[in-house]
Structures are given as structure tokens and as C-alpha cells.
């Protein structure tokens, strides 16, 4: 029966690996990953849970500059050269499904993706 046990063990291990991969994939999807995009192009995505405190500068003088701050699981636009400053006034964002931070003049969007949010959309 030793061989059969081994075969079963191999099969079980395979199933277990699939399970773990599926779970990891799930939790990654449900996590708090901030996606920064400009002109509809993804610039970078940051896992807010694990990312160190940092500032990220997106854009240039021509397309407009936004300085983004990441801190303790949340993200915001710290500074921007746009006229209306709506993106800065938006403040911190930390939940998936929440209202994205948008800088219309600079075509910048910060969105938190995943299934981890408590709401499907925010009206306002």
C-alpha cells in the first residue's frame, strides 16, 4: 500500500497547491492595491498593505505633475500643479470600491482595486 499512499499524497499535494494559489490570488484581489494611471495608462500599482511610506511623482511639466504620498495603508495626492486642486482636496483614500482620486487637468486617476471594499460604489 506504500505506493498507493504516495500517489494519493502527490495528488493531494497538487490539489493543496491549487487551493493555496487560488486563496493567495483571491486575497491579492481583495487587498488594497492602489492603481495610479495617467492618460488611461497604468503608471504603477502599489500594495498599500505592504508598501513602505513613500512619495511618487507622476508626470512632467508638460502633462502636469502630481506628487502622490503613500502612508500606512492609504494614499493621497500631496501636491499638484493643476489649477483646481481637487485632487489634493480629495484627501486620503484607503478603501477598494471607494471614490477614486481624480485630477482631471492632469488626467491622473488613483483607484483602489479589489473586492476588499465594503461598498460597490460611492455617490457624490
Amino acid at each position, binding site marked *: *500500500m*506504500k*505506493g*498507493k499512499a*504516495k*500517489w*494519493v499524497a502527490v*495528488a*493531494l499535494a497538487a*490539489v493543496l497547491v*491549487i*487551493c493555496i494559489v*487560488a*486563496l493567495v490570488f*483571491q486575497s491579492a*484581489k481583495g487587498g488594497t492595491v492602489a492603481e495610479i494611471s495617467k492618460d*488611461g495608462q497604468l503608471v504603477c500599482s502599489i500594495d498599500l498593505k505592504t508598501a513602505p511610506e513613500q512619495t511618487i511623482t507622476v508626470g512632467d511639466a508638460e502633462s502636469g505633475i502630481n506628487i502622490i504620498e503613500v502612508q500606512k495603508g492609504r494614499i493621497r495626492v500631496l501636491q499638484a500643479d493643476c*489649477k*483646481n486642486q*481637487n485632487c489634493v*482636496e*480629495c*484627501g486620503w*483614500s*484607503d*478603501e477598494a470600491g*471607494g*471614490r*477614486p482620486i*481624480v485630477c*482631471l487637468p492632469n*488626467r491622473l*486617476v488613483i*483607484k483602489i482595486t479589489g*473586492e476588499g471594499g*465594503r*461598498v*460597490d*460604489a*460611492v*455617490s*457624490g
Partner: protein
Amino acid sequence: MHIRIGFAYTSNCLKKPAFFIELAHTSPLLEPGRFTFSGIDGIIYENPQKEVNEVRKKALKITYFLAALALCVTGLCACAPKSETASFFAMNTLMDITVYGADIQAAYDAQSIVNSLDRELSATSESSAVYAANTGEAARFTENGAELLSRAFDLCKETGGALDITVRPVMEAWGFTTDEYRVPGESELAELVKKVDFSAAAESFDGALLTLPEGMKIDLGAVAKGYAADRAVESLRAAGVEHAVLNLGGNVALVGANTKGEPWKVGVKDPFGKSSYVAVLSVADCNVVTSGGYERYFEENGMTYWHIIDPETGMPARTGLAAVTIVGESGVECDAFSTALFVMGEEKGLEFWRQIGGFEALFIRDDGTIVITEGLQGSFESSSDWEVAHREG
């Protein structure tokens, strides 16, 4: 002696194919135990049939177990509804159309409907019909554009002018159309307010062609997103989409319930910016539209001036409200009413709700307390202080 050859479950079955030689223990010559014969490994059992049954049972158990595990894994994957989002800029805002368990193409098709409405209705794009109308030309509208325009005139009338799409010259004076903010003088506003008159504009519209009286300008900003949501939802439904969330710059439209059959959760943005949202509505198959002073404003000499203008005075509407959310079936109505009720204030707004009906409202007062109309009871959650307004009373 009776010999049967069956499927191998021998010790080295993984290494090389071997036959399980099952010998009925009928001959006293054959002792139970292992044997090798001409390179074939086998076992002689005392009760071969019992052994075979047991092995089969075990094999069956393992198969069931693996099948169950496989189901679990696929079940886990199935739990996360497959959703795809079309994300784009239109009507001066970010828009998301998310479809669940449906082809993303449906979302793209809805997007192109919104985009073409945007091209027609934008007050700033020089090639739009609205732009042409605002320069005094006879502007021709498409079927959709014309439908929105006549709907908008009706809504202006219905709200008693609390919503007035001809308020644009006043908006321009405040700089809300260019982000170059300024506080206009009293006499300047008094002059401009004279030209705010939706009924005169409505008279100059023949159902397709709009020729505005001189000096008059329209802005469909308070209704265009709502109307776009209606057309986009219509297109999604026609494509067979059963679950979708449209977020057209804070105007939320919902198709069906979520994929589990439960209502969607829609947050109502915190107008004071302390948290993401102050209330959550559990709703399905409807629109949730919010208007608030926080959306566009500027400060000068310690005063805050926002973009929701009282058409009567030309001044930002100050009625003790920070935001108004409307929940209802028609996107264009919700959009129009959220602005109109903000201008009316809580008391007049509730009176309007009692008279007109067909929608529910949520008022956030300047002090952060909330008033909901009775139809929202049961689908509303909030940690703020709140009360219910009833139809009678």
C-alpha cells in the same frame, strides 16, 4: 484452481505496470502472501474478493475526496464574480462602467453612447450642439440630445425653476466654467440673473432645433450625466447584462442586484471629507445621485462659494445643506432633483418630495445630521445622527 487477472494495485504500480494476479484461495498448494512470477508481482489473498472490494472502496473514497476538493477550489474561484470595467473620461469627470459575468464589450458599447452624448452636449467643446446654441446659432440636436433637452425643460418647470439650465452666464461670471474663480459684483449678478429663464429657452426649441434668445446660454451639466446613465443602462440591458454598476463621476446607476442576488452597497460621500462616506444605501436597479457644495468651490475672504447656484439670486445656494442624494428609477430625474432639492433646501425639498414622489431623498445638513425620506428606511445605514421624514406630516 481459478485465476483472475485484474487491475494492479501492487506495490510498484507507479514504477511499472504490473498485473494483480488474484488467485482464489482454492488450492492448498498456494499459500497467501507475496510472490513474483516471470517478472510479475502479485499477492495471494486469503479472501481475494474482500480485498478487491476494499481496494475499490478506498479508491472510490479517494476519488470522492479529490472531487470534493476540486469542487471547493472551483467554488472559491466562482465566489469572486468575474467583473470587468470600462474606465474613461467623459463629461469632465471619470466614469466607470463595471459589468459582472458579462462580456466587457457591452460596457464599451455603453461607453460609446456616453461619449457621443458628451460630444453633443458639452458646453465647452466647439463642435458641440450646445456650444453652437450658446453662440446664438440655430443648433440642431440628435434624437437623444433633443430628448434630453425637452426632458430638461420639463424638469426645470417641474422643480419650479430651482433647476434652471439657462444659469450658465452666471456660472461663467463666478468662474466655475473655467476654474478662474471670482466673486461677481451685485449689479453684475442682477443683470445676469435677468437672462436666466428656462421658459424663454424652451420656447425657442422646436423639438430638434434650438435658437436661444440673445445673451442666453444653456448648460446641461445638471442633467447630462443622469441622462447618459439612462441611455447606458438601456444599452447594457439590451445586451443582456444582468448585473452592472455605473459610476459616472459620482452619479451611480445600478443594473439588477449583485451576482449573489443581494442589493448593491452604495456609499454616500462624506461632504465634509472626514471619511470616504457617511452612509451606505443597500439598493438595486436604480440610480443614486448626489449634489453637494464640496464638488466645486473656492474660498475668498473667509467665505466659501460653491458651484450650485440659486437661479433666482445668482448666488451659491445656501440652505443649510451640505449635500442631497436622490434615489430613483430615472437617472435624469435623480440628477435634476439632486441639484434642485439642494437649491430648495430641506423644508421645500421635502414638500416637493411629498407632492411629486417617485423618488427618495437623503439630505445631509451643514451640522452633519441626516434626514432620509421614509422609502429609504431599511436600506439605509449610517453612524451619523439621522431621522426619517414621512409622507404624511
